[in-house]
């Protein structure tokens, strides 16, 4: 009886899909006929200037509120850290933010920053570091020198570095607490293998980190010519230029050698993997290596992903798995961005009893777009959505300067954002269909399910050879 019901639900879904396909695909609602003029907006272009030592600055004034935003993008990252020091980039970022400066111990800086309500944070990720400082414009005279000193002469007070390491170790102890965290980490490890993109810190690597490592990391990667500043707010360009010259002018430019980061070759571990944990919902993630940030087909891929599973409720996978079936609250696809090669992935959390069914339906959605391509009106919806919301890249000055800084950081020309718009406009159905054929590879899938294995609705062996993994040991 039970089995029969399950089957009929799946059949009903497939039948409904067929029925829908036969109907006129755009229903006539009164609102779909509303047409609007194209948004006419020439967003302000930030001023770009470069100090003699190579520090690049983007700036836009904004006098709406008496505030200033400042963000520093630093060419540094975990990918440049040797495997036995895994976790160093994060510790260096934390140590820089919390560890004081050459002239001021950490407690004093904390007190100063918080007494003025300055917002100050930072982090070093895989391929970039970002530090930001927001303050009231009346406090800029205090805040900006502090920010500059932290970037140039961080103290890395050993008490704070040790604290950062100890907290990272506690975080490692908690690495298996949350199923979402498990599936993200283990999936990356499976697909990337030994590549730094798939790496996580270990008790051993974290335990080896010292103040000297953080200082060395800073000395190696933090130089005026590795930093792009993005500034907006209630000040003028002349004042900013002279202040930055005073604060950063004496900082010497340096040659920095970056270790070569390999291009991930192929999916390191295709196949089906499962991890047992006593949960009532299974975390599913499948996919394979995707494209790098500069891939010339990336605009077609963006449109493809919007239609496939990245465009919210209008996308296919969400319509099928969530709206039609009620099998997931959160489901979708993504092509992640990375310099040397991101991932294509599909993710879903579904109750234990629909694990295999949801996975099968997700796979079917990908297969279907590969086999039959997209429809013209899906293309229109995706392009309209991307192009009409483009204005939200420019609606606030801090977003504008940060977008320009980020494009330059990635090595794109200054007008890349406008070029992207033109490229999206030019994407055709044929481009998207070709991207689906070229960048979706069901034969290369790594499939990972984290949940209560013995209660799955069926064995996962129908998706391939299944290996059951154990969770990594915690300290």
């Amino acid at each position, binding site marked *: 009886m039970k089995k029969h019901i399950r089957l009929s639900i799946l059949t009903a879904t497939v039948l409904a899909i067929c029925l829908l396909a036969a109907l006129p695909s755009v229903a006539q609602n009164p609102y779909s006929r509303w047409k609007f003029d194209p*948004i006419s907006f020439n967003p302000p272009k930030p001023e770009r200037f470069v100090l003699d030592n190579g520090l690049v600055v983007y700036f836009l004034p904004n006098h709406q509120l008496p*505030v200033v935003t400042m963000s520093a993008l630093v060419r540094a990252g975990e990918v440049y850290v040797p495997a036995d020091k895994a976790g160093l980039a994060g510790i260096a970022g934390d140590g820089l933010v919390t560890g004081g400066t050459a002239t001021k111990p950490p407690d004093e800086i904390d007190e100063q920053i918080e007494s*003025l309500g300055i917002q100050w944070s930072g982090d070093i990720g895989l391929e970039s570091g970002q530090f930001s400082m927001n303050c009231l414009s009346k406090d800029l005279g205090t805040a900006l020198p502090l920010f500059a000193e932290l970037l140039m002469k961080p103290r890395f007070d050993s008490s704070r570095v040790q604290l950062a390491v100890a907290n990272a170790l506690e975080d490692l102890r908690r690495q298996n607490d949350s199923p979402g965290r498990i599936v993200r980490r283990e999936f990356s490890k499976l697909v990337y293998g030994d590549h730094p993109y798939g790496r996580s810190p270990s008790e051993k690597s974290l335990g080896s980190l010292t103040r000297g490592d953080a200082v060395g990391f800073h000395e190696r990667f933090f130089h005026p010519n590795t930093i792009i500043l993005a500034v907006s707010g209630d000040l003028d360009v002349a004042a900013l230029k002279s202040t930055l010259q005073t604060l950063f002018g004496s900082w010497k430019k340096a040659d920095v050698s970056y270790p070569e980061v390999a291009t991930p070759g192929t999916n390191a571990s295709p196949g089906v993997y499962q991890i047992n*944990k006593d949960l009532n919902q299974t975390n599913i993630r499948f996919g394979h290596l995707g494209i790098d940030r500069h891939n010339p087909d990336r605009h077609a891929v963006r449109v493809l992903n919007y239609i496939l599973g990245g465009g919210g409720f209008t996308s296919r996978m969400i319509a099928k798995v969530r709206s039609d079936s009620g099998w997931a609250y959160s489901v979708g696809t993504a092509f992640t961005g990375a310099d040397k090669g991101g991932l294509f992935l599909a993710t879903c959390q579904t*109750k234990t009893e629909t694990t295999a069914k949801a996975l099968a339906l997700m796979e079917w959605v990908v297969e279907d777009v590969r086999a039959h391509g997209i429809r013209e009106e899906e293309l229109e*919806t995706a392009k309209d*959505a991307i192009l009409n919301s483009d204005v939200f890249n420019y609606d606030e000055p801090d977003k504008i300067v940060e977008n320009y800084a980020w494009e330059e950081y990635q090595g794109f020309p200054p007008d890349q954002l406008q070029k992207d718009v033109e490229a999206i406009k030019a994407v055709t159905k044929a481009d998207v269909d070709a991207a689906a054929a070229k960048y979706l590879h069901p034969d290369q899938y790594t499939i990972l399910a984290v949940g209560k294995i013995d209660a799955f609705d069926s064995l996962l062996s129908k998706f391939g050879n299944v290996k059951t993994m154990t969770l990594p040991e915690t300290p």
Partner: protein
Amino acid sequence: MKQLRLAGCLVALAVVIHGATASAQDVTLDVKRRVLDNGMTILVVERPNAPVMSTYVSYKVGSANEWPGMIGAAHLLEHMMFKGTHTLGTRDYTREAPLLDREDSLRVAITAEERKADMYTFQRSVGISDVPDNSALVASLKAQLETVRLVLDSLVDKNAYEALYNRNGADGFNAGTGYDGTTYYVNLPSNRLPLYMSVESDRMANPVLREFYAERDVVIEERRLKLDNEGPAKLFEQLVGTAFIAHPYQIYWEWKSEVANLTRPKLVEFHKRYYAPNRMVLAIVGDVKADEVFTRAQDAFGKVPREPDPDPVVTVEPPQQGERRIIQEFDAEPYLSVGYHKTAFSDPDDLVYRVIHRLLSDGRTSRLYKSMVIDQQIASSVSSYDYPGAQAGDLYPDLMVFDVEPKSPSTPVDCEKALYAELEKISTIPVGKDELQKIKNRMESDFIWSLYSNLGLAGQIAEYEARAGDWRYLLTIRDRLAKVTPEDIMRVAKKTFTAENRTVGTLVPIKSES
């Protein structure tokens, strides 16, 4: 479509000061307000910097307005409000409407027959003879339901509401259900104002809760995602269920059993009662003209009738007269949550509590962070927040919660001791002048930043308008905050941080077999 429920994370305290002390910088906030005859309130801030607008709707209804048998109604209705109207989301509403009714009655009939079947099974199991067998009837009802569903599926214009806004450039499109309020927000290019007004009034007046039963499953799946499989959230559910024994705030998240039995007709009734123009505030901030917004709102919403105000929540939580302790076992590392009852937003001490939060847990110089994370190193994080923690303050007496992540080998017990030591200090030693001034400066800075984004500003004025009946409530906070004294802090801390007013929850690890 996601719930605004904030457990286990530091809830941003809504900070509200206008202008400032002598050293501070004044900001202007020009909010234009109009109340339509049907009671709908519209707030507008004109900001012509970029051709965009942020829209934020707050309805005065949330999970505190539910009752047994209807738990989860506010949240599920929030999801259902994305399913369209008589004209949006359908290929033929005249065919669809009777089939939706038919689906409801078939599901009611199936549930009734399945209950009977359970009874028959029980009767057979104890040896009663001649028990009827209704399995053929159940199968037939299910077959009919399947047919109806297939036709209904063919009549749906799937996710048309989202598609419409997305095609028009929507950004940050979402909604959230709280305990005393439900919100809907989206950023759009500002030339879409006429479309927005038309669609939103249609959603208020003519919603169709199609695809109801699949969405019910989605809401249950959301519970599994955010609660059932996350240790600290499970702990929190038990904590508030223990701290509150009477008030509806006792239910942190709707129970699966309740949601699974909600029906479309029940939610249609809930919508009629609570989604009336007189229970709604709309705020728009961006490149719009207030007069045009008011005119269009009158044209679009003016015809929607006012509804009688439903009864407010009358249940008053009885005073707690002794410490309560609970344990939640879960396959995760230890965690500690401690809650103290405190007053509602309308209490004169509300601002004193906001200052206490800041003193204790905001930033690296806060007392708990300094003591537990930096000096003693017994915790890797500590935070405090109000539960439920609405942006403009909670309508009813709420809970001040402390969350601590103990750092091994320290235990939740170690962390409890350290927490109580700091709470004792703040209750007995007057806070220094500089420390208090630091907090006031921070709150002022945060207030100014809270006006930065269009959506942030729209949300803030809408929430204060909905909570206090007048958005200008937020402008009064500066003067009231200036008057908070070290003695106030000590007095309020002393009456709050007592053992008998406290509920303590501990997450205790158990390992699942692998």
